């Protein structure tokens, strides 16, 4: 079904900044990520680039299905995969060639979580580190992996925790310095954070609203409606939801909220130059699909 939906994209041309990404020379003002350099070296034309995006989206869906099978019945896992693959919110990540880094980062995050689910912590570390090759914000995989392990009730030995935390901090600090991210820290503040949290919440809500109103989706959102009272109310709502989830021993919907919050933390906390768009929600919605599927087809046990 996903292939049927996305096959028309193979005949699409390049839109907006995509042409720049497919330009052989790097004389363009786009982030010179490893994944972009690989694409310039390997991808022959726009059609191939679209095929790569669609294939990666399918792989991510399959990885989510494999992960879901560990905690929910097979039918629920299939529904979770379908909801993730077919959600209209993901169209920007799949159809927009510039969003390839999001797909790559999500793929590594899923591989890392799958590895930690099997308690292969060293492999999980390697996969989490590889997520950075897709996108700077792939750094969140270092937080998402232990988050999953904690929710699944895993207890890591103290040396493992120390090594994980220490190496992650080193990589993060080194990466922030190397990527010149220090310059982005200027806008940090409580109001900035709650305002970006409100943007992220609106985009997450769009994953549901877009089911009956796909026209609400756009490449450029108007955030002028976000005022201080609205932003602080949304922040309070998040606090209330997370407290409720904690009191109920973190049911899957609570974990999905926590996952989304951690996945979006860099964009909520730091002023990234490309701001917040639908494609940036890709990794954050992974557990949301699983939670929604679990609500529709509930199972016994914690999930």
């Amino acid at each position, binding site marked *: 079904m996903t292939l049927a939906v996305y096959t028309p994209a193979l005949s699409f041309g390049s839109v*907006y900044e995509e042409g720049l990404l497919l330009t052989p020379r790097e004389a363009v003002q786009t982030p010179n990520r490893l994944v972009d350099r690989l694409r310039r070296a390997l991808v022959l034309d726009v059609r191939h680039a679209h095929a790569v995006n669609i294939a990666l989206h399918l792989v991510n869906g399959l990885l989510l299905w494999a992960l879901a099978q560990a905690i929910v019945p097979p*039918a629920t896992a299939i529904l979770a995969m379908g909801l993730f693959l077919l959600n*209209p919110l993901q169209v920007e990540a799949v159809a927009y060639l510039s969003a390839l880094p999001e797909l790559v980062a999500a793929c590594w995050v899923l591989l890392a979580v799958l590895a930690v689910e099997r308690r292969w912590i060293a492999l999980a570390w390697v996969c989490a580190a590889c997520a950075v090759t897709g996108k700077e914000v792939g750094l969140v995989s270092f937080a998402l992996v232990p988050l999953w392990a904690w929710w699944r009730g895993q207890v890591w030995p103290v040396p493992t925790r120390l090594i994980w935390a220490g190496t992650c901090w080193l990589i993060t600090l080194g990466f922030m310095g190397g990527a010149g991210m220090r310059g982005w820290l200027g806008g940090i503040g409580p109001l900035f954070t709650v305002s970006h949290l409100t943007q992220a919440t609106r985009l997450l809500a769009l994953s549901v609203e877009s*089911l009956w109103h796909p026209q609400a989706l756009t490449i450029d959102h*108007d955030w002028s409606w976000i005022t201080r009272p609205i932003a602080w109310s949304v922040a309070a709502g998040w606090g209330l939801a997370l407290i409720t989830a904690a009191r109920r021993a973190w049911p899957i919907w609570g974990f999905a909220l926590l996952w989304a919050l951690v996945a979006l933390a860099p964009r909520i906390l730091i002023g990234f130059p490309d701001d917040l768009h639908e494609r940036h929600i890709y990794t954050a919605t992974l557990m949301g699909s699983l939670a929604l599927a679990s609500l*529709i087809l509930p199972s016994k046990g914690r999930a």
Partner: protein
Amino acid sequence: MRVLIGVLLLGLCARGSAQRLEAWRSDQALWDAAARTAPMLPRPALNLGHAYGQQGQWPEAIAWTERAILLTGGRPPLWLRGPLCHQVRWLSVFSDPPDWSLVLDCVW
């Protein structure tokens, strides 16, 4: 019953995705959809003007570029000044746009 709800939801998702995908067919479709969803933002208007210009539809290109300038209130943010100036110059070369020099004083 729950299985039916799941199947219906998947159908809704597929329909929504197929509809949304159409907006990514071309620059014109993409920015036309963006300009409808966020009519008060200058960037969709500017890029829609650019898309029309690329197809040689100069009246539409000029109209949307004018709208982008209007939406900035004559004081475009720093990140939009470069693209706006570039587009005005581009339209001036390939067509006969109205005199925007007064509007764009702040930009130049």
